[in-house]
């Protein structure tokens, strides 16, 4: 199982956490303000590789943390 390192609680199993989504990233190539808003709200990079994302320690300290994870292997990277 995937284990995440919570800055408050240490290393904990992933089923204590709630996935909060990747950090939104609107490409610079989109210039129109409305289109940027649509992209910010709906679109995902859905990275195949290392992605930076937010997790919520729901069954622990109930605080948010940032995790860098490799989505090909589903493992945390530094």
């Amino acid at each position, binding site marked *: *199982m*995937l284990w995440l390192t919570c800055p408050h609680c240490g290393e904990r199993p*992933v*089923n204590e956490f*709630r*996935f909060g989504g*990747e950090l939104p990233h609107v*490409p610079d*190539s989109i210039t129109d303000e409305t*289109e940027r808003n*649509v*992209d910010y*709200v*709906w*679109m*995902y*990079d*859905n990275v*195949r590789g290392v992605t930076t*994302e937010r997790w919520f320690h729901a069954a622990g300290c109930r605080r948010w943390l940032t995790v860098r*994870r490799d*989505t*090909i*292997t*589903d493992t945390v990277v530094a």
Partner: protein
Amino acid sequence: MNEFVETLLDLEWHEQKSSYDVVIIGAGGHGLATAYYLATRHGISNVAVVEAGYIGSGNSGRNTTIIRANYGIAESVRFYQHSVDLYATLEEETGCWIMHSTKGLIWLAHTEMSMRAERARSLMNQACGAETVMITPEEAKRLCPQLDLTGGGRYPVLGASYHPGAATARHDRVVWAYAQGAMRRGVDILPHTPVTGLLRDGDRVMGVETPNGPISAGLVVSAVGGNVTTIAAMAGVRLPIRTHPLQALVTNAYAQGFGPIVSDSELLCYVSQTARGQMLMGAEFDSQPSYSMQSSFEFLQSVASKVTHLLPFLRDLRVLRQWTGICDISPDYSPIMGETGVDGFLITTGWGTWGFKAIPAGGEGMAEMIATGVAPPLIAPFALDRFARDHTMADQGSAGTR
């Protein structure tokens, strides 16, 4: 399995040509059904279907083969009911035995809240032409004698919705029925041909790059599962898609018949019996997006604890096999079909965990769109621009179990 099926069929395989009217990326159910309906309904057979692996090697070979239409919103119910109808006549139409078997689906409710959801579902289904009725726990027990109505003392059954039209079919036979039907009408299927890039002229997509050379095309259609974000990015298209793993398992054979499909909207799991007698079950997709196809022990634990409460006989069976597919989940749990905003590039994606049941209707709709340039009414509500228009097809009633 598929390599074995290949030897049974007398098919003519062709070399890759340098140009086609239509190139479809992905020879899974949706890609092949689109090619099949292009050839049969619209007479367009100068079509290539390119596939990175072998035919049906993605999610078409990993699903739990349930065909049903009891969705929660009108657009979905109409679309999936059409798919259920097309599946029912597919054997007759293609001449291939797909092991289609109508079983009926029981959707159990354990709380007053989900009873309300099931009542709303059955009324919505009846209003939109799909048959779903509410049944009492006793009626559920009659349809499925193995059911423990107390839910192991923990999940008492208050009632259920019953969808008699639900069915199952053999997944790889469906894929091969479409492949064979398309190839006999002149469609070229090119397995082991990954798309490495798209040919572009300005913004317009003109074809695909493969290791065997480029193919120019009047129209490129992505019917990719799993890696659709990568393919769309080649055309400069951004998608509201996250790729999540979905797991399933089968047990060894259960000697007695298990008639219907049993689903549960609270526990988020579903159980059916395969033609071999094995019990096939699954649950919701993994919470974090991932391209890893690693199956987990936690999934086995969680599914086993749910289904053995409802169906105690499953405790005596052994897990034979467990597998994982990666599926494309859209924010509103509905598919995305049609135009992408880039000329020459159409898409059919967002098939999440509900793609198998939609193969005929999705393929037929996409074929009509390719042939006429206009999205037919059944698939038009599922266009990509619905997100920008704030007109999402959110179907929470069906979001958990499929």
